């Protein structure tokens, strides 16, 4: 075929395609008419053929570039990820997330160890020698703890309570979820960053707990405050740490994959762990913001808190255990 005849013949299709593309690009995916889609895919295929023809006959860089451009745009339009439904989020939280955690139980236990062992050691050391706690976390932090838990939090439900707690809930989201995501992200340094964050948080939190135990007037206030949201917060921190460790595992132990492929393979799952942990931390922030400091009898908090712990453990170990049908399996 003659080059000019080819262009003359095909150009109308190219223009139709261009107009169609620029119209579809600006309109929402679900609003495309079936006719448009049929036209687009037909034209796209024919332009792919044109491109390969021009490539094989070397009919000039500019023509090739132009068609390459058309193909790339159409490719971007046609091959997109399927639209996601809200169902997906629910399915993930109800089944996928606990299932994934159980699948990655090894990383979870490792993260738990990295957090729990320094936590327990810190608690014991801090309770027996408060001066050591002062050395590790600093005088100012301990003074803050003393001030915060030395008295009961609020007298009643007034605007002061509502105002301060709303703002604190925002702070817990910003701070805690941020730390959890960062702990996950730093797992990409072969897991070392995650391990460091887990260890240092374990020691700090342990030392403060130990200090509080050594001061009897703080103990009751402190534990009744932390028990409820701790169920979500502490588990979520460990889970996001597990996510970071999965990422590190992908880099360190690729098995029979290439290191890059192994990283990609582990990446998706590790991210899901971190996102699930983020949701749990959001719940924790609401509880810590509004329920934990309520001016009610500590006994109620202990009961609710223990129930929360049991619920979280049951959720993580049992949810999504029903028989998996083929459509449901990931």
């Amino acid at each position: 075929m003659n080059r000019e005849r080819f262009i003359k013949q095909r150009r109308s299709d190219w223009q139709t395609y261009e107009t169609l593309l620029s119209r579809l690009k600006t309109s929402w995916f679900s609003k495309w008419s079936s006719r448009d889609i049929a036209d687009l895919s037909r034209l796209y295929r024919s332009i792919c053929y044109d491109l390969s023809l021009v490539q094989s006959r070397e009919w000039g860089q500019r023509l090739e570039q132009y068609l390459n451009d058309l193909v790339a745009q159409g490719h971007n339009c046609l091959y997109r990820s399927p639209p996601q439904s809200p169902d997906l989020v629910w399915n993930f939280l109800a089944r996928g997330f606990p299932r994934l955690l159980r699948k990655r139980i090894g990383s979870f236990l490792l993260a738990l160890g990295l957090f729990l062992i320094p936590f327990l050691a810190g608690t014991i050391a801090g309770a027996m020698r408060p001066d050591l706690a002062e050395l590790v976390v600093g005088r100012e932090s301990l003074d803050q703890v003393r001030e915060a838990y030395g008295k009961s939090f609020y007298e009643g439900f007034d605007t002061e309570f509502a105002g301060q707690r709303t703002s604190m809930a925002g702070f817990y989201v910003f701070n805690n979820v941020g730390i959890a995501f960062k702990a996950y992200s730093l797992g990409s340094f072969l897991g070392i960053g995650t391990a460091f964050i887990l260890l240092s948080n374990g020691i700090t939190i342990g030392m403060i707990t130990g200090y509080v135990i050594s001061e009897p007037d703080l103990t009751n206030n402190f534990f009744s405050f932390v028990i409820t949201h701790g169920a979500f917060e502490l588990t979520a921190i460990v889970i996001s740490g597990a996510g970071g460790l999965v990422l590190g595992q992908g880099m360190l132990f690729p098995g029979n994959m290439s290191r890059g492929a192994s990283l990609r393979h582990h990446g998706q799952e590790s991210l899901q762990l971190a996102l699930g942990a983020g949701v749990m931390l959001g719940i924790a922030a609401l509880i810590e913001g509004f329920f934990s400091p309520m001016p009610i009898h500590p006994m109620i908090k202990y009961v609710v808190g223990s129930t929360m712990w049991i619920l979280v453990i049951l959720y993580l170990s049992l949810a999504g255990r029903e028989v998996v049908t083929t459509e449901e399996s990931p």
Partner: protein
Amino acid sequence: MATQPKAQVDTRVVVETPEGVDFRFVIAGPGKRGISFLIDWLLKATVVGFAIFISTFFALFGDLGQGFFGFGFLITLFLLDWGYGSLFEAFWNGQTPGKRLLSLRVVRTNGTPITFLTAVGRNFLLAADQQPAIIFPLFTVGIIATLTSRRMQRLGDRAFDTMVVDETRDWITRSPGITQGVEALTRAECPRRFHVPERTLAVIERLFESDRIIPDLRREEIAKTLSVSLRKRLGYEEPAPPQFRNPHAYFERSPLIHTLFLRRVLKTFVDDKNTDEEARRNRLKTGVAETALRSNSSSRRPGLSKTSENDQDVSLDQWVSSANIETIDTNTDWIVGENFETYGDQRSSNL
């Protein structure tokens, strides 16, 4: 993928579509990505400043106002930290405002648009890539990762199988600078033949592409091979140098005759319609519907004037479906130039 050569000298990546066609992406380097990051950063800083302003204003309204706006402010900070890149890229097909300004886009390495999880994942790992970040992110980790990767992927890109591509369109259009200040060849100078195939012109252009840094003398050396055989084909004779010349002046001017000749060839045979093409694309970008309708009604072709008279505001849908070869201006100059030849002809005249 199979056609990807091992040793890569430029930043183009070939992706094979399910239709079996290869097309190329230009990978964006750390420079452009750095600039787009800075733009995004400034935008975020502006939003934070605005949020501070609003929350101090509402702090006047007692405990409740303070509480709600403290909450709003902190949530804004959190969303900017972890949601800005993730959500923009997830819902804006791989672009943040900074990326859109520089026409960069995140795609998966197989060329398809990124998914929600991929967008979130690569942006979460930004926290690792931007280390060390004491006051301002230095991106040392990210830059090292980028430079050691064939597709310029930072850690987040590697873990989630994405790459950042440069969609700037004019990366191969003809640079007007090459032919500036050069005289075109005249017919009289080329007695044998007055035609150079498009392929050869493309080769010459590659030699002058601005991203290929070649010293002038080296370029002259490369140009010589092509120039000599082209001269033979066109029958071009270098005009005899002036009889009397000062040897010092000769060296100062350093004529680089072969380079000059190739530039003259480009000037003569490339029918440069760059500006027209740009204008056409801009039209397409801004208002397709209007342009389509206007060109429809203003066309002088008899077959079309009938329809355009009847319904001035014909919908684009109808216009597209009714578009065929008669209704569209078949001026092909913007792509072909005036010179064309058949496939077989080109092969035989292959340099």
